């Protein structure tokens, strides 16, 4: 009995600790990507594996700054895709990037409103109405800084009811009907489906979030990592990104 228990425990330890990366030529890459890329990158990963039999792509989706910190602490990433230029710049400055960062996608900001736009919000100026419940991200997170910049560009004075901790919290306030309008990313509006609608912001006041990607210095499979980056930037990758609302350069 004891021997069995030991064998089970030992196999658990081994299976948790083993590095089952392929040793041959098969591509095996681990991609650290910003949370907003979850749906698009999962689809690109599936397409990549379908096109390269035997290839393996794993993902770690989280906030860009958290991922950069994880890579800095030695997490095994082959590719890093950030939702902003600032976190990427820090990673490059720390010498953790093996290639120059390239912007592979952009994400425009948009006004999110309730389904069918019951308050009739048609442009950013409408947000100044004091009877509207407007929420935006906190200035500490990128979407909050963008929102403030857009309102300043438009010369519109808006006092939000709340500075939400992240973009998902803004979306939730709209889909629950507790707020009338907020400023989020275009991809967030599309992801809500029928639960909310979006109002497009004109280019002259809008802000584009840029998404850069690199192969990491510590990548165990740099060739595979480059192949994945090419897949993201290729025609198929761009089509997938665009289907989720991203812009592509």
């Amino acid at each position, binding site marked *: 009995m004891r021997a069995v228990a030991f064998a089970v425990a030992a196999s658990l330890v081994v299976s948790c600790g083993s590095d089952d990366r392929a040793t041959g030529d098969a591509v095996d890459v681990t991609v650290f990507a910003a949370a907003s890329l979850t749906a698009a990158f999962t689809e690109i990963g599936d397409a990549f594996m379908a096109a390269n039999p035997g290839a393996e792509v794993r993902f770690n989706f989280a906030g860009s700054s958290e991922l950069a910190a994880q890579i800095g602490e030695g997490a095994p990433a082959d590719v890093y895709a950030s939702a902003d230029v600032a976190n990427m710049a820090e990673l490059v400055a720390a010498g953790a990037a093996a290639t120059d960062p390239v912007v592979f996608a952009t994400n425009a900001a948009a006004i999110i409103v309730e389904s069918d736009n019951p308050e009739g919000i048609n442009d950013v100026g409408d947000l100044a109405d004091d009877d509207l419940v407007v929420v935006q991200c*906190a200035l500490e997170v990128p979407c909050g800084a963008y929102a403030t910049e857009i309102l300043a560009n438009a010369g519109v004075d808006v006092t939000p*009811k709340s*500075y*939400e*901790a992240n973009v998902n919290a803004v979306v939730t*306030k709209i889909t*629950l009907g*507790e707020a009338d309008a907020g400023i989020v990313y275009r991809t967030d509006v599309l992801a809500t489906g029928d639960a909310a609608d979006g109002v497009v912001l004109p280019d002259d006041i809008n802000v584009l979030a840029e998404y850069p990607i690199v192969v990491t210095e510590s990548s165990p499979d740099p060739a595979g990592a480059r192949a994945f980056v090419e897949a993201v930037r290729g025609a198929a990758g761009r089509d997938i990104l665009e289907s989720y609302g991203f812009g592509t350069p």
Partner: protein
Amino acid sequence: MSRRRRRVELPIPALLLAGTAVAFFALPLVGLLWRAPWSNAWAYLTDDTAVTALRLSMLTSLCATALSIAFGVPLAWLLARVDFPGRGAVRALCLLSMVLPPVVGGVALFFALGRRGLVGQYLDEWFGITLPFTTAGVVVAQTFVAMPFLVITVEAALRQLDPRLEDASRTLGGSGWYTFRRVTLPAIRPALTAGAVLAWARALGEFGATITFAGNFPGTTQTMPLAVYLSLETNPEEAIVLALVMITVSFLVLLALRDRWFGAATRAATVAT
């Protein structure tokens, strides 16, 4: 080792486990103290954000504690003294918010009290009251998660109280209210205080339900835990200082209460049984 000392000692394994538990609680605090930016601490403390958030936290957590006492003591009395069908289910229902993930609690509050909520839509329509994004909403969220701590503490004390004391008061002509005020309340006061402090501490640290239901706006709904969370995004040093302020305030309160009330609560329970 002398015999006399050995008498008060716990068995070695228990002592080791207890010591590990103390280290488990102490080490993260030591970590915060270790990384705290002492040279800039004063600047962060006198910062507008910190002062406003701390003041709001004090106000709302004390309001939540008062509401918890006002509604929680009668609730505890109902659960402890009145035998009605479905009492177990009612108790479970009232304590559920202790185990609910706070963010889910915040969303559930929207469904109940939000402007499209079950009751909230009529509050808005008939009285023009909307709770989300207001200081009152913060108090509601804090009370929702804090009151159960008071209820279980007071209910336990009421159950351990000898009902003959209350019977004696009543047979001597004391009204129900008189008996509650002069017999029941003094007997459960230590537990009531301990429960109120637990509820206050929970309200002070409340984060998830508050940021979900009440949002985050400096001066009206940005309590200390929200300010700490957001400053962690851009200025971890400031977050550490703010967290240490909260920890210090709570620690001093718990320290002051250590023997006077928690000890008394235990003694009262022992005497009553």
